[in-house]
């Protein structure tokens, strides 16, 4: 309850400064050749000093990519992306191997400050109280990674994927693209060819990661596609909670973001992956904004393993995203909790896939879609059980809330069962914030924007509760901000 109130207060404060992360920092930038070619890929691989096998891996992805076409089945519309006009790699200069925060470009540190990441403070506090380790991705290079030492004591590896390629090639070779194959889809192939950085996490057997791991992404340079690659492996009996949060500066040009996230949970392991996504959604006329075409998939590879996705999606002009679980191990559990908010001219086509392969596997989907303005918000989900998936269980609840008369909500559930013992449940509701509710709140002194934040936060409470404490307040704040001006 007090947290909701918090939102209201924060919305009040921030309404003056509509998109508070709307700025861009000046940096000298080193760019790859323009467009996409083998040369671009060789440039990136060389720049990152990658071993030969990695270059081959990328080139293979690139050749597969060349045989594929952009998917058009999602309920989104956007002008064709001209990949020949894009730079696929840009790195802030002067950041080659900083040994500590003192060696980091002060401009960059200022940027982090604006974003509210108290790196320094956190490092000082390390070991004193619970901390969030931040592997900060600024444009394409992981600039600084904190807490590695502390985590290393437990044998946990938390580093950039580039470092992992250098230092832990066996793990990378074994698991990279084992959940999302290179040619899984158009964007995953593109990502595999040109990914520039991202995070790598390995939790050793029977280890509980002592802190929430967190990556803050920013897209900062004009015309630079951002292609992160994240790989998280939870070995037998381990547990990890990973947070991903994003903000981006305001600009007119559309930017592409095509990340790939792969999670692997071995026997008795659990991974909790939370996202708060607040990329620039374009202005109120639908100009600009990020294209967010992401492939996220988790593999419950071992028995009794569990993967849980929680997402709060408020940003981006166009979102195409389906964090999924492959329930391969017997008794494994997959969860998907989602809040997707679209305002102005935003388009969201998001949902999940729960693929039941093992016996006694269960999955749960709670999706809350909120559409306002002229936006379009689609839930697309697949729940399937295969022949050997005895006693597969799924519960899906899919709720849509409409604000105003010009937006739309769509629900496209696919349900397939090949095993007669399967029980799948699907519930869906659609509701609208009524004028009567707004008037009632008004009569009690609560103005329109606060009332909407209040009602929407109530609507998605079940999902907000799933977020780690560190994210809950930020998420509630976003829910309010994202819907500003949605009622005339």
């Amino acid at each position, binding site marked *: *309850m*007090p947290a*909701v*109130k918090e939102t*209201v207060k924060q919305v009040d404060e921030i309404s003056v400064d509509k998109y508070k992360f709307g700025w861009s920092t000046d940096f000298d930038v080193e760019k790859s050749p323009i467009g996409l070619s083998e040369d671009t890929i060789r440039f990136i691989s060389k720049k990152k000093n990658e071993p030969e096998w990695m270059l081959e891996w990328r080139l293979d992805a690139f050749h597969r990519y060349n045989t594929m076409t952009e998917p058009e089945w999602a309920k989104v519309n956007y002008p064709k992306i001209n990949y020949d006009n894009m730079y696929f790699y840009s790195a802030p200069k002067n950041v080659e191997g900083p040994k500590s925060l003192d060696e980091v470009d002060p401009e960059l540190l200022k940027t982090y400050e604006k974003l509210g990441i108290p790196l320094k403070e956190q490092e000082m506090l390390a070991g004193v109280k619970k901390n969030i380790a931040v592997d900060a991705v600024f444009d394409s290079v992981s600039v600084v990674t904190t807490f590695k030492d502390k985590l290393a004591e437990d044998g946990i590896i938390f580093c950039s994927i580039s470092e992992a390629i250098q230092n832990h090639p066996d793990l990378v070779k074994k698991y990279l693209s084992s959940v999302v194959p290179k040619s899984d889809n158009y964007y995953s192939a593109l990502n595999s060819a040109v990914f520039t950085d991202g995070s790598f996490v390995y939790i050793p057997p029977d280890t509980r990661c002592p802190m929430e791991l967190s990556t803050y992404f920013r897209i900062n340079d004009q015309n630079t596609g951002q292609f992160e690659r994240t790989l998280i492996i939870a070995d037998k009996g381990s547990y990890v909670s990973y947070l991903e949060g994003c903000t981006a500066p305001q600009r007119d040009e559309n930017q592409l973001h095509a990340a790939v996230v792969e999670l692997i949970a071995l026997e008795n392991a659990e991974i909790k992956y939370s996202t708060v996504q607040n990329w620039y959604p374009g202005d109120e006329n639908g100009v600009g904004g990020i294209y967010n075409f992401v492939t996220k998939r988790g593999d419950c590879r071992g028995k009794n393993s569990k993967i849980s996705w929680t997402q709060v999606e408020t940003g981006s002009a166009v979102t195409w995203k389906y964090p999924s679980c492959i329930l391969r191990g017997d008794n494994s559990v997959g969860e998907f909790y989602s809040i997707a908010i679209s305002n102005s001219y935003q388009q969201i086509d998001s949902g999940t896939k729960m693929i039941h392969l093992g016996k006694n596997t269960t999955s749960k989907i709670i999706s809350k879609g909120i559409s306002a303005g002229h936006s379009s918000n689609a839930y697309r989900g697949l729940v399937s059980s295969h022949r050997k998936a005895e006693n597969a269980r799924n519960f899906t609840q899919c709720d849509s809330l409409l604000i105003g008369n010009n937006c739309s909500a769509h629900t496209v559930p696919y349900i397939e069962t090949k095993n007669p013992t399967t029980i799948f449940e699907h519930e869906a509701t659609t*509701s609208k914030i*009524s*004028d*009567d*509710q707004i*008037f*009632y*709140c*008004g*009569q*009690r*002194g*609560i*103005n*329109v924007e*606060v009332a909407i934040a*209040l*009602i929407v*936060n*109530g*609507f*998605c*409470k079940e999902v907000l509760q799933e977020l780690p404490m560190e994210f809950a307040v930020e998420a509630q704040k976003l829910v309010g901000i994202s819907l500003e001006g949605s009622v005339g």
Partner: protein
Amino acid sequence: MFKVSNLTVSVEDKEILKDFSIDVSPGEVHAIMGPNGSGKSTLAHVCAGKEDYTVLNGEVLLNDENLLDLDPDERSTRGLFLAFQYPIEIPGVTTMTFLKSSLEAHYKANCKEVLSTPDFMKLVREKAAELNIDDDMIRRPLNVGFSGGEKKRNEILQMALLDPKICILDETDSGLDIDALKLVAEGVNKLRSESRSFIVITHYQRLLDYIKPDYVHIMYKGKIIETGDSTLALDLEKSGYNNYIK
């Protein structure tokens, strides 16, 4: 203190209120009675600022300020409270959260220091106990699945918390059994003071047995056609509206 003068209001080109006036001094309780469709609820809604009505003429003054120029939330924080005939349900938002948002909006608008959460909870529990409202009800989503009696008691609870200057009760007695009616009436009576005024809209004399009005008005076709003291309501109960409708 609260004054409606020459108010003419239409909905979709149909005049509902016609040159309506009423003058309420501090501490007074005015009852407005009238047959269905006489414009009673319209009056309540227009005073509170509900959309869908076109004000053609007139003013609604609270301490000489014309409320018609203000948004509903501003009218509320100036001190106008409307107890709804049909309180609205808001799923997902607990009553406690709603009360807190409401009270904080009022404190903020009136430059008062916002209560700490424990103090706020204490205040709510105190006021709630007087209305026989238990903790469970406060933790439930606002008005969702509330019985008729619970909804109306909840309205009175909000009235008690917000400390308004003028309260309009729109058929608060509708849908209440006799025990609930008494409870609600007691709640209202506790709030009567020299500085607070009430307009009680009702169909039945019964409510006025418990909330004693200073004046009773009969409203018909959008205006007041008869004004008297509490005996008028008793006469009305006996003889019906026909004696007054010419």
